[in-house]
């Protein structure tokens, strides 16, 4: 069940600068993923589990929940910063629907590295795109990272 990742920190503020790319994360949401995500978030909105209903709203198939786009971006960020990094701020917006069966890839890069209130911070632009390279969910994040120094 759990990953074999060591609790030691892998990423330090010295490792990042403007333009540093965040390792991408690829996800394959299925109808089962969407059903279970609706269940754990107690979301009865029919566009996420009732294909016929989703089509009456003009969608090709059941839609990836807006929060699941967000969750994938958070997973990418948390994997990247490691257990000694901290996610301070995170925001995203749902621009284009994702559907069951899509391949969704989260990406990002560092836009600014700075210090504030004794913390080493990095601002990032992040986004999730589909298999056609269309951006579904752009966003931003601020992370705090430990220093080697």
């Amino acid at each position, binding site marked *: 069940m759990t990953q074999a990742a060591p*609790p030691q920190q892998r990423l330090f503020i010295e490792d990042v600068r403007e333009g540093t790319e965040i390792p991408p994360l690829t996800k394959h949401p299925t109808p089962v993923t969407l059903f279970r995500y609706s269940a754990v978030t107690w979301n009865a909105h029919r566009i996420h589990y009732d294909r016929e209903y989703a089509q009456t709203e003009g969608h090709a198939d059941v839609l990836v929940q807006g929060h699941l786009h967000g969750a994938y971006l958070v997973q990418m960020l948390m994997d990247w910063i490691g257990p000694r990094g901290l996610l301070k701020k995170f925001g995203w917006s749902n621009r284009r629907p994702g559907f069951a069966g899509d391949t969704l890839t989260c990406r990002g890069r560092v836009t600014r590295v700075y210090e504030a209130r004794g913390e080493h911070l990095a601002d990032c632009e992040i986004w999730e795109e589909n298999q056609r390279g269309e951006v579904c*969910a752009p966003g931003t994040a601020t992370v705090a990272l430990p220093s080697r120094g």
Partner: protein
Amino acid sequence: MTTPSLITDELRAQIGVEQETLLGEITLLDIQRYALTVGDLNPLYFDEAYAKQTPYGGIVAPPNYLTAVITWGVGPQEGELSRDGLGLRRNEQAEGNARRRMAGGQELEFHQPVRPGDVVRCLTRTESMEQREGRSGPFVLIITEQRYVNQRDELLVTCRQTAIMR
């Protein structure tokens, strides 16, 4: 031609009103079911021995967990749900011409991690409602601010949320 307003008096009355929602105790099972469903097997959410060796000091919830849950508490009975399954049948009239709702996105600030056993409440305030003209007709942007606090009144997460009604 004037566009009819999608913002009814009932909707407008919600602006500025603060509501408190009790989320109750956040359990290890809640946290792990959520993370598993996302496919996020980060050991910070699953492995207590691992998490103890990190600055978190123990298992925590994914940072966006609290704000991802649509309904805390039992929610409405099936017969009370509106046709789209999201809202309440009795509010369909109040929501006037706007029939479709979409999650626009969130801006989150994380103050403290959420831990299993935390008893959480959420203070929600509707900040604004604004009608705009889109390519496929008018829509309303609803911005709400939520503050999640634990049993020690410590701030956990703040969230500015945009919902789109069209």
